[in-house]
């Protein structure tokens, strides 16, 4: 079984691809202008930010970047397409021949290009009396289209691929993780001939649509029938694919160059771009660098980017396994509060874990302290008292408890533990017990 995908991802720019209209309109047809409505005399001007995002994705997908790109007109008549042609890229693309890893499997990327989205047609009214309403707010919204090689070998793998891709793109350029961000055309061949399922929205539907198509084609082949090369649609409500209209199968888009936009040199732009580390790439590095399992690495990275930061700094001090158990245990259970705590308490977390692993703090104390750091009002105390005078507090407590001094003098070092406990209670985990104990013993020693 061979599956190849054409994935359309909406780029999270503020304005549209070829005009200044906002991409975030609510009321139908509220974010439109002569350009995205295709009025006579209007013409497109390219949104530089969209181009940059497209190039970054292309570079991230390890494609060979095209040095000079241009756009094309894809002509077809449809009411949601104001100019009755779509500005897209045909011979030219941002890049070709890249790849994307799904776990250990390499999925080829044939090409990545930029294009504008058409508007949206909505059918309303009772059956038999339906009318079409058209909303052009989406007209001209920037899309990047990613075309894969037919390297995927099952519907589940196709879904994994898309899941991983969206994880990476979310971090890379901030695409929203919503289902409708991604629209997919899926090509599938079980036997000789290829069937295209057009315009599936969302990851789950891609898998479902492909599965139902596998079932259909397998049944046909089982009874010796031939699979017709065609375009089908996935019907979400019925969970089956249906044949497309005859016309679409004969589509000839009559591509010509888009003369209004000229050419753009993106080679130097791509060269100057640094692809930041994306979640799954990071997970893979963490797996190698810190010697943890792939699953654990993925889990940490996907829980939170900064949790992974904390894990990595812990791991460098106390080793991967210890860091792992602390990160997935006490730290992640109080993570929301810890993360909101922007005053550098992470540093304290690493200190605590380090103290425990050195043996200067008990495991349970360490857990208690982390819980204290991440527990509601105790945090407030700590926040209010970064200037707590530890030395002064010790002096005061020692003064208040002459009986402890007496016991200590007698050689009972454990007597100090009561006062150490008092200090810890007062300072709410601000200082390591090791530090408090040393200071306490020094102070008690002075009194001898």
């Amino acid at each position, binding site marked *: 079984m061979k599956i190849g995908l054409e994935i359309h991802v909406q780029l999270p720019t503020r304005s549209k691809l070829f005009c200044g209209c906002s991409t975030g309109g609510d009321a139908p047809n509220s974010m439109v202008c*002569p350009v995205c409505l295709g009025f006579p*005399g*209007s013409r497109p*001007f*390219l949104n530089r930010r969209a181009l940059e995002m497209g190039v970054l994705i292309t570079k991230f997908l390890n494609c060979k970047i095209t040095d000079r790109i241009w756009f094309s007109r894809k002509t077809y008549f449809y*009411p949601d397409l104001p100019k009755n042609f779509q500005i897209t890229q045909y011979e030219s693309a941002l890049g070709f021949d890249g790849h994307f890893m799904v776990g250990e499997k390499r999925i080829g990327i044939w090409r990545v290009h930029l294009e504008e989205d058409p508007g949206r047609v909505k059918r309303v009214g009772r059956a038999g009396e339906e009318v079409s309403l058209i909303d052009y707010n989406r007209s001209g919204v920037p899309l990047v289209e990613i075309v894969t090689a037919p390297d995927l070998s099952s519907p589940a793998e196709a879904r994994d691929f898309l899941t991983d891709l969206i994880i990476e793109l979310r971090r890379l350029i901030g695409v929203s993780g919503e289902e409708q961000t991604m629209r997919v055309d899926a090509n599938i061949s079980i036997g000789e001939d290829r069937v295209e399922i057009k315009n599936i929205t969302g990851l789950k539907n891609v898998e479902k649509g492909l599965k139902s198509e596998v079932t259909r084609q397998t049944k046909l082949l089982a009874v010796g029938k031939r699979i017709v090369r065609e375009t089908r649609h996935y019907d979400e409500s019925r969970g089956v694919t249906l044949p497309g209209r005859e016309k679409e199968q004969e589509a*000839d888009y*009559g591509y010509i160059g888009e003369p209004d936009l000229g050419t753009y040199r993106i080679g130097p732009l791509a060269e100057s771009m640094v692809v930041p580390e994306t979640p799954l790439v990071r997970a893979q590095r963490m797996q190698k660098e810190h010697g943890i399992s792939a699953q654990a690495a993925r889990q940490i990275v996907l829980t939170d980017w900064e949790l992974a930061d904390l894990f990595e700094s812990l791991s460098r001090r106390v080793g991967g396994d210890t860091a792992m158990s602390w990160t997935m245990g006490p730290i992640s259970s109080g993570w929301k509060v810890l993360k909101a705590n922007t005053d550098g308490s992470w540093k304290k977390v690493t200190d605590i874990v380090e103290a425990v692993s050195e043996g200067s703090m008990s495991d349970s104390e360490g857990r208690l302290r982390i819980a204290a750091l991440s527990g509601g009002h105790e945090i407030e105390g700590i926040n209010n008292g970064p200037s707590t005078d530890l030395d002064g507090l010790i002096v005061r407590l020692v003064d208040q408890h002459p009986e402890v001094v007496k016991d200590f003098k007698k050689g009972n070092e454990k007597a100090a533990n009561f006062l150490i406990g008092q200090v810890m209670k007062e300072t709410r985990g601000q200082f390591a017990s090791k530090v408090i104990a040393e200071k306490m013993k020094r102070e008690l020693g002075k009194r001898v």
Partner: protein
Amino acid sequence: MSFFPSAAWLKELDEKHQLFTERLEDPLAFEGGQFHFSAKDNLCARDFQARAGSLILKGYRPPFDATPIKRLRENGGLLLGKTNMDEYGFGSFSTNSAYGIPRNPFDIERCCGGSSGGAAATASLIRDHVALGVSTGGSISCPSSFCGVVGLTPTYGRVSRWGLIDYGNSLDKVGLISRTVRDIEQYLPVIAGPDHRDPTSQVQPPLDLRGEVRTVGVPEEARTGLSPEVAGAFEEALRDLQRSGIVVREVRMPSLRFAISTYYILATSEASTNLARYCGMRFGAMNENFDQGFNDFFSDTRSRDFGTEAKRRILLGTFSRMVGFRNKYYVKALQVRKQIIRDYQKVMEDCDVVLTPTMPFVAPRFDEIERMKPLEMYQADYLTCPPNLTGMPHLSIPCGYAHGMPIGMQAVAPHWQEGTLLSFARSWEGSFHYRFPEVAE
């Protein structure tokens, strides 16, 4: 004829005419402004319909001004009105308009040329007037030649096309037509210059109005197929130039004969996509038959409201870019276009401008036009198409008269050298005596 004009109707018409001519005597006295201008009807202005000669745009009021119109207005210009044209620029005689046919001011039995026919006639009729024209394949040069005025087609990208209703976007250029080169010199700097709304205008070097012409190249290929009147006037003009010290050099430009077919493939390919948007919804002529399927809906409007020539060019252009023909026609034409540009550049190594007659004949009579086949009409542009394909600036200027009809010659300069053309026209104007039509009051 079944039409009998009533006295009331005649009176109304007469009053309108009276008002119109009075205003044209001194338009600025009526509405103010420092100078007046007109715009070809494919240029958008908020206060006028923009119909581009097409029924399908009847009633369309654009929500914005074209950049050249905006810039002229900002500099004290008064837009008098819109001038008639062939539908979308599809024609050489302005006979393909849905709104009547402009007549040549020198002889009303003859055409104005096209497609900026109305613009050239206006420039010829009104003193101190500058007309905005548009050229895709010769639509400024041709009517300028037929109406005895000066027409400048600037370098492609020199003047912003924001607000220009597209014909062939890689070829369309907004230019100026006027009685003398003086006006053109004055207003070109106003409309020229980069505009962020037209990316193709943003790569231009600054406009330089200076220049000098010492040598003109005359392609051998341009001296065939001319009517005796045009050949005579052009040879006379060459002798005048030589007498004034300019070197006339004979050159060969074999690729010129491919210009017409190359032009029609590229221009119609682009036009057929540009015209796809006219489908009876959103703007212009509306189709109210909403119970039809979309295909029937837009086919209805387009069948009814596009003229014959528009339909012909849509079919031609669609065919040229279809799978199976695209490489043979559209892609091939792109290559030939580059060859033609190289041919010009080679000639221009030794010559300051390339000089030819503008049109092979004087403005034809309407009955002659009726007998012409489309291909013969297309062939008439064999001298105006080539520079348009190259994107090089060119200028048509009167160089003689035959039987009372003006004859024009066309100079082509290297990219961005409008100054060379203006200086050539200035010195020509210094010794040539223009004639203007006498209009019966």
